[in-house]
């Protein structure tokens, strides 16, 4: 057992006891189907291929019901895939039961044993491993210090705040030195302030331990703020995997473009005519397309728009919102009946009903049917 661990040990840094052996996690053609009582088959995860690099913090992001939690449970081994393989490093763990995979899992509601103290909770996995008592105690204390709950060891979970419970759950997951740490919606049970604090904590703990960490979230801000890379999922399918900023700047399709960004991206119809992108009022806003003539969707992030005297969009202001540093204007573009948002600097005063010209620094063009991105 010990020997095996030595072999997969890859992390270069040395010294700290909290250091974990990290491995990459590879999912190959992973598919999970659920069959309900009536025989109806739901594909929760559909032919999922992804390689999660060793020692990185990865966010699995998607709307609820997209299969991200299922993917996490498949990696944990609590669910068996319908088909496909899961690798930790070179080891195929698909048929290995969860307790032998070397994973730590933090549940959404933490699943701390309510009748045990913090110390007993953290010790529990070690007692199962039959580790000598004083060694186990030292390790538990070390983990508790790592997540900054060293002084709460004698408390029961119900005497802790949500954030503290979260830390205990992380300590319990990390104490047996897993190869992979999995977090299921780690921040969803916390209030807004704690959330901000805890996500930085998770980032710090992950950095200090260097453990490959995968977490699931439906909150884009959460995923973007701490992940090294994010994997966007929808309806069981992988949409895109990249650094958060790259996914934001260069979404591969309309779903990703719409799912990321707050305030959300503006989407409206336009036409491709002889390689040129034409608005409904006849204004040409871009050209150089080699796709055949068709109706397309245009995506414009609010911050890509700016007020300009010779802008191509003619817009009537509907609402002006001052959001601190910037101003957000909601306006109606000529030829369209829905509103678009633009974030503009605070230096000019705008009035409702005023007509302005808008220009854009960047835009996305999507296939109207498939949502695939043309440009």
């Amino acid at each position: 057992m010990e020997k095996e661990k030595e072999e997969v040990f890859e992390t270069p840094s040395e010294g700290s006891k909290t250091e974990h052996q990290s491995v990459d996690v590879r999912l190959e053609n992973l598919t999970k189907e659920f069959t309900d009582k009536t025989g109806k088959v739901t594909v929760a995860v559909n032919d999922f291929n992804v390689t999660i690099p060793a020692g990185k913090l990865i966010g699995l992001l998607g709307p609820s019901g997209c299969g991200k939690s299922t993917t996490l449970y498949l990696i944990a081994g609590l669910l068996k895939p319908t088909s496909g393989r899961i690798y930790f490093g070179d080891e195929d763990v698909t048929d290995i039961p969860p307790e032998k995979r070397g994973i730590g899992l933090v549940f959404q509601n933490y699943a701390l044993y309510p009748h045990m103290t913090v110390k007993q909770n953290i010790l529990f996995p070690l007692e199962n491993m039959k580790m000598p008592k004083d060694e186990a105690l030292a390790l538990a204390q070390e983990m508790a210090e790592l997540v900054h709950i060293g002084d709460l060891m004698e408390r029961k979970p119900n005497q802790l705040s949500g954030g503290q419970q979260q830390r205990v759950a992380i300590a319990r997951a990390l104490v047996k030195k897993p190869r992979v740490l999995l977090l299921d919606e780690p921040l969803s049970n916390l209030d807004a302030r704690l959330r901000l604090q805890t996500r930085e904590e998770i980032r710090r703990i992950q950095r200090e331990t260097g453990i490959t960490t995968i977490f699931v979230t439906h909150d884009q801000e959460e995923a973007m703020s701490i992940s090294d890379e994010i994997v966007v999922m929808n309806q069981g399918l992988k949409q895109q995997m990249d650094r958060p900023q790259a996914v934001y700047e260069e979404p591969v399709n309309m779903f990703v473009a719409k799912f990321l960004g707050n305030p959300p991206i503006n989407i409206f119809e336009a036409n491709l005519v002889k390689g040129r992108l034409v608005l409904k009022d006849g204004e040409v806003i871009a050209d150089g397309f080699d796709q055949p003539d068709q109706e397309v969707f245009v995506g414009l992030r609010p911050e890509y728009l700016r007020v300009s005297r010779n802008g191509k969009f003619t817009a009537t202001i509907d609402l002006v919102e001052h959001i601190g540093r910037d101003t957000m204007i909601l306006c109606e573009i000529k030829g369209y009946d829905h509103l678009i948002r633009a974030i503009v600097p605070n230096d000019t005063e705008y009035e409702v009903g005023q007509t302005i010209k808008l220009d854009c620094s960047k835009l996305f063009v999507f296939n109207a049917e498939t949502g695939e991105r043309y440009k």
Partner: protein
Amino acid sequence: MLEYKKDGWKAALCLAPSLLLMCVFTFWPIINSFIMSFLNNYHFALNREDVYNTFMGVEKSYTYIMGGRFTGIGIQNFITLFRDKDFLMALKNTAFIVFISVPATVIIALLIAVGLNSIKAFRGFFQTIFFLPYVTNTIALGLVFNSLFHVDYGLVNKLFNLVGTSWINSGATWGRAMFVLFIYSIWDGLAFKIIVFLSGLQNIDKQYYQAAQIDATPRWRVFTRITVPLLSPMILYITITSFMGAFKVYSSVIGIFGTGRYGPVGNEKLLITIVGYVYEQFGVQGMPFGVGSAGSTVLFLIILLITLVQMQVSKKWVHY
């Protein structure tokens, strides 16, 4: 405020019938029997001797109270009680039933419930089977056991080829008869406990078990360290109510041995219980309820004491 007062009266009026009935048939008898247990030589109703003495001008040596007469206040009833070997036998029998069959039943019920909870197929079927004793009459169950363990044609003797072994018929030893009563009370007590434990188990969050699985927790440790503590409020409730029930055991003994007997023919008080003993006092000539009342008081005090001990112990072991 006026509204509230009016409602209060309405509530009292609605409650009155049941309160009245409870006062007459529950509260007063409790107080009454408590008082009676401290009245020396209490005899219910007047008898011929009493009338004769009054007529002859013999000085009364007793006082009248509650439809009967007594000679003084004291603990004479209790002295009589503890000198009666029947009562001592009843104490011993009851103690055995309480302290052996109740823990055994609770443990077996817990194991069966955990087993049932982990199987999917036939769960409903088994639940029904285990619940059947609960809806069956005690006396009827007793009769079934009576035939099962019958010395000549009982299934048990046939099955294990124990020719002539008397369990509950004449010549049965205390140990054998008690064994039958154990089996009976364990089986009879399982039903309700299993149902309560099952509902408790279904309320335990599955994630605790998933967490335990990921931590490679052995099955037995999952049971002792997770299931039992999380189920402890239910276990406490079941244990306390079962202890109370077992202290009052009576009908099952009658059911096994037949009308009016607490043991096999020839040794009719072999398995007499405290409640059985108290009930027997009604049959004694002249209705001297004092000793019976003293028996009830002793039973009450024992149950009270045991329950207090349990509550105290539970503070350390039960996790809400």
